[in-house]
């Protein structure tokens, strides 16, 4: 397991001079992203608190463990703060929109930002409407006059955290807006949401949302209402709550969902995993995107063309790279799984963001893929015309092939999830042995 090392010049602090967020990692040791004013301090503070709270919470089997710091990305005109919960089941992102920033344009890049306990306390005490001075990253002078208050931390960086980030990008790309309600109704709905751990579904009903026990077309799954509690802080400034979800129908298994609170200057988005016990890292959406050499090459070309746009313009990239739009989109998906771009469900588009720690290996480290490769190396796969037999342990599993691609397996894991979490390792082994799967070169 790798380790994330943070080296901040100073602890972040909120003082009379403004909010001073310290950064570490990314393109430089302590990059500086932004200096200027936020026009609405309270929503920004509440949003930052929500993101930081998600980073240090585990919603399933809560035990206190060391948590990873939130990540800030400077795009052309906005700042995005992202974090992932300890159980890998909740992904939070706060976007400070151009209307909320008043100062020089943010620099480009992604880095970690320090949110410590005294800062949390000061953020929760912010009041008033005057613009607040915000500095993300220390300036040259401060770095050179460091007075020894260096904050260094090493936090274990579990592989599932990295893989979860990659999965969220792919899963979010399949979501669409399903319902949008006003702030008062949103407050009412969140207040009445039961804390149950089982999966419930939400359908739009009149001006508000209604809970229902069985999925219908257009329903959104919410499992574990307690996971939405971090939205409460920003509710009093919000103007609307929008709910996103992948296509659902009668008989759907539990699915992911995304919840967006909008204020005039800040957007807060929470993406929840299908069940409270499932983290994003095991969802297998990345495995279904495993591609051939051509997409990998396209991805290299496209990533060279990215210019830290807050919203990646596919048409512009199509023209710049001279590739058809489908190949550009496939390349962007592959880059998303490598952590090089993120997907913004509100805009429905990718944005350039390079994780400040190596996610390139995320796809290769996937345990299912590693297990599949081990099966192939051990010679346990026997392909036939319409099926492949895979010997794993003491049992032989039959992988059913249709047109050379696996569509079913007799293993228990597949019986339980039936494709809702990507292919099982036996199917992957069959794919590899048939030669349809090349290594992902990220």
């Amino acid at each position: 397991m790798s380790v994330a090392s943070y080296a901040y010049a100073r602890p972040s602090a909120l003082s009379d001079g403004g909010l001073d967020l310290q950064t570490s990692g990314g393109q430089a040791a302590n990059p500086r992203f932004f200096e200027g004013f936020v026009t609405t301090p309270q929503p920004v503070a509440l949003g930052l608190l929500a993101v930081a709270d998600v980073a240090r919470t585990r919603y399933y089997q809560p035990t206190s463990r060391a948590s990873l710091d939130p990540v800030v990305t400077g795009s052309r005109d906005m700042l995005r703060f992202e974090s992932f919960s300890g159980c890998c089941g909740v992904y939070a992102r706060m976007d400070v929109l151009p209307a909320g920033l008043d100062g020089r344009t943010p620099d480009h890049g992604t880095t970690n930002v320090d949110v410590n306990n005294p800062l949390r306390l000061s953020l929760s005490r912010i009041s008033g409407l005057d613009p607040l001075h915000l500095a993300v990253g220390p300036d040259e002078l401060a770095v050179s006059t460091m007075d020894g208050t260096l904050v260094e931390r090493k936090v274990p960086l579990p592989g599932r955290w990295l893989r979860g980030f990659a999965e969220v990008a792919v899963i979010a790309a399949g979501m669409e807006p399903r319902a949008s309600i006003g702030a008062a109704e949103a407050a009412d709905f969140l207040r009445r949401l039961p804390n149950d751990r089982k999966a419930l579904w939400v359908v739009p009903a009149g001006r508000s949302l209604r809970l229902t026990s069985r999925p219908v077309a257009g329903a959104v799954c919410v499992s574990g209402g307690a996971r939405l509690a971090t939205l409460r802080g920003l509710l009093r400034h919000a103007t609307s709550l929008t709910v996103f979800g992948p296509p659902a129908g009668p008989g759907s298994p539990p699915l992911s969902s995304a919840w967006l609170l909008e204020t005039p200057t800040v957007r807060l988005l929470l993406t929840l995993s299908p069940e409270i016990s499932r983290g994003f890292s095991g969802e297998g959406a990345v495995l279904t995107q495993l591609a051939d050499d051509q997409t990998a090459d396209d991805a290299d070309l496209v990533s060279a063309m990215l210019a830290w746009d807050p919203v990646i313009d596919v048409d512009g990239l199509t023209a710049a790279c001279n590739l058809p739009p489908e190949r550009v989109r496939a390349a962007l998906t592959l880059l998303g799984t490598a952590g090089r771009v993120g997907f913004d469900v509100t805009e429905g588009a990718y944005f350039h963001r390079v994780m400040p720690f190596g996610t390139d290996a995320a796809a290769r480290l996937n345990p299912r893929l590693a297990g599949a490769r081990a099966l192939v190396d051990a010679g346990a796969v026997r392909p036939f015309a319409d099926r492949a037999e895979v010997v794993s342990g003491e049992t032989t599993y039959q992988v059913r092939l249709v047109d050379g691609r696996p569509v079913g397996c007799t293993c228990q894991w597949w019986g339980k999830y039936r494709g809702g979490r990507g292919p099982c390792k036996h199917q992957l082994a069959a794919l590899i042995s048939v030669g349809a799967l090349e290594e992902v070169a990220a």
Partner: protein
Amino acid sequence: MTKELPAELARAIDKRSPELAYAYLMTLSEKERKAAFPAAVAYTREELSDWRGGYEAVAGLVFLGCAPTAKRAMPALNRGGLRWRRGSIPRQLALDLLAARDLPWLGELASLWSTRSDLSNVAEWQLVDGIAGLAGIEPPVTAGFTRGWIAWVRAQPDPAEAITTGPYAALLPMLFEDDTMGRELEFTFHGKGFNTALLRLAEDDPEVRAMLVDGCLARLLRGGRPGDLRPFVALHDELKVTPAEIGARTADYLGLADATLGTVAGLAQRSLRHAHEAGLLETDTLLELTAIILRRKEKGLIKTQITWVRTAAKRHPDRRTELLASLDLPAEPDLLPSAPLIALPVPEMPPPLASPAEIAEELTAILGGDRSIVSLERVLAAIVEQYTRDHRALADAVSPLLTDRHRLGHERARGYWAALGRMLCDVVRPPESRSMWLKEAFADLRADHALARPLADPERSPSVLLEIRLATIERYLRRSPVPRLVATPTHRNGHLDAEVLLGRLEQAEREGWQPWRIDLDQALLRLPRTDPGDGVRRRAERLASPAGQAFTAVLHNGHADPLVTAYAQEGGGGRYPWYGLLPDRRVAVTMEPPAKANAVEAALFKLRRDKKPQGSPWVPGSTTQIWTGALPSHREVVAAWALPSLAMAAERNTGSETGQILPLLAENHGPTGPATQLALVYGMCAPEATDRVAAVDALLAFGSGVDWRATGRHLGDCAAPGSLVLSRAAGVLRDAAEAGAVETVWAICVGALPALLSTPKPRVGTTDILQLAERCTRTLSRRDHVDGLAEVADRGGGSQFVSAARGLRDALAGLP
């Protein structure tokens, strides 16, 4: 190569004697001690893993005495039993030894030790404290060290004295830094705990007091799990924070009023009220607080806030209008009766399974937990078809699944699961020898009526149909196979199109085989109650076989329905078989089969009358689907079978998954009666939130298919004695009304109120029902009469109950 351990040291370890080890180590030089370290670690490896223990004291002493650096000492001290029993290391000997060694890294050892481990063992903490003292450093400020210090203070004879001794004042802020430190504070020992000492210290030293108050507020603002926060709420109350202190920190208290935990918000409200009464709170702050509190869901806080603001308005007449305006709760949204929900057509079954490989996959899904009728029925149909076509391929595909003993054939498996296991084993078995055939021919004579034995089981349920069908397949598939099953449904809720069944029976007649008896019974039970059309009837009359004639009879006469009556059962203080207490009163149903019922109907349409409430085994959600799938046109019967489980869950506040059956009942056909009404009543009062959501779905989906007034009467009847929680039902009814089923909810409320109003003291939730009934009445503009309402409304007083009754009376009379 590690050197051998010196013999003296080995002897000391073997004898478990720290004194001998100490004596020997004191005689060595520093170099020799360091050289002995690797050997000592290797020597004690086995002893330390021995669960009987006893070696920790001497091993720890030896490690401390020999370690070359702090970084190597810590892992050694973490081995085996030493990790939890470091407190047994004799402190004085260890400290003397370390002092004699004159080491430069003692401070590092102390900080490593207190960072890595939880020093709640007092002896261990004293040892670390001693090491820190030897090294001359300040006590390390870490969570573990603080925990140990708290334990030590608590263990002293005079904690108030002990808390002030020593240079430990720097540890106090740590109480509020660490997330789980609160749990140390809530433990008091014979009234003489750390808390009391802390409070005494706060009394003497105003700086400490200020730090405690600030720390409490900061920790509560930071939020976390309720168990971690409650000790700080208690500490805040015990500190008896003065109004002056509150007044200086109003911003913090306002932040606390918005906390997730209700007790924290209550604390903020109490404290700010305290300050307000002392005149130290601005009216603007009060207005802000009111806005925050009125958004919360705790009714107690809202009530207190309203009383407070009203008193404040009297006291500050200049801000009166503003204050009273802040109390305007947002009006309840108008209920909009929506158009009746268009019943979505029930989706059809997926296409049948075509190959043995697909059967194997579907079977894996079933074994993995998918017990829906979609999978089960498709697998059964496919097995029967494939068997006659290609027995070998089927056996090859299915046999790998049976090797895993855990999944099938489990000894404790009951009912249909065991039958499924036996059937699959039988399918896979190779052909027997001739002697086996003879044995089985004799066995056949007795076995045919053994098939029907589950019907006579007193613990039967509708899943018995599936069990018998599986047993039939097991018995007859080899001996008298049929090309296909006729009972496979065409829709996912279990319905079988009459035309499709007709086609199957025509095929049987053409090919000259008879469908199995139980198969035909199940198929006839699955016919929907809609008119199939004259074409189907004419074709059916041309069928000559007994099966065809039975089919024609059902088409003509329709389905037979049992007689269902509700009655009350008295618990009388008795107990369930597993010693839980019986409820005082429960309303249950009994069923009498119709005249001329066949064997299956006679078994499943009969529910005996019991004097005492019956317990019910756990009914998993998957089984409810099997029940509705077996009897999709008799929803009253299925409700009657599900009733004991629903009732038990609602009375005992235990979870159950049976509530999920209610929306399925709404999808099915059949008359509804007392069983369905009671099932809805128990479902509305279910303890699990998901079951109540299912009840809302059912209320919406049933539409006008249920007598809602009768349901309301049952609700009042069951809730008035207090065995059911009425406020849960009130929540369900409010959600259903806001989703559009206003007529339904109005009828239920008006039906329930006479019984609820006749209790001497109104049950919790009656006020909610009255208010909801008023809203519905105004929306629908109905005029009606409710028994007992006028008496309650004429009672004096300003209680919410009476004013709600008055509101409803006015609404029913048409007054605004």
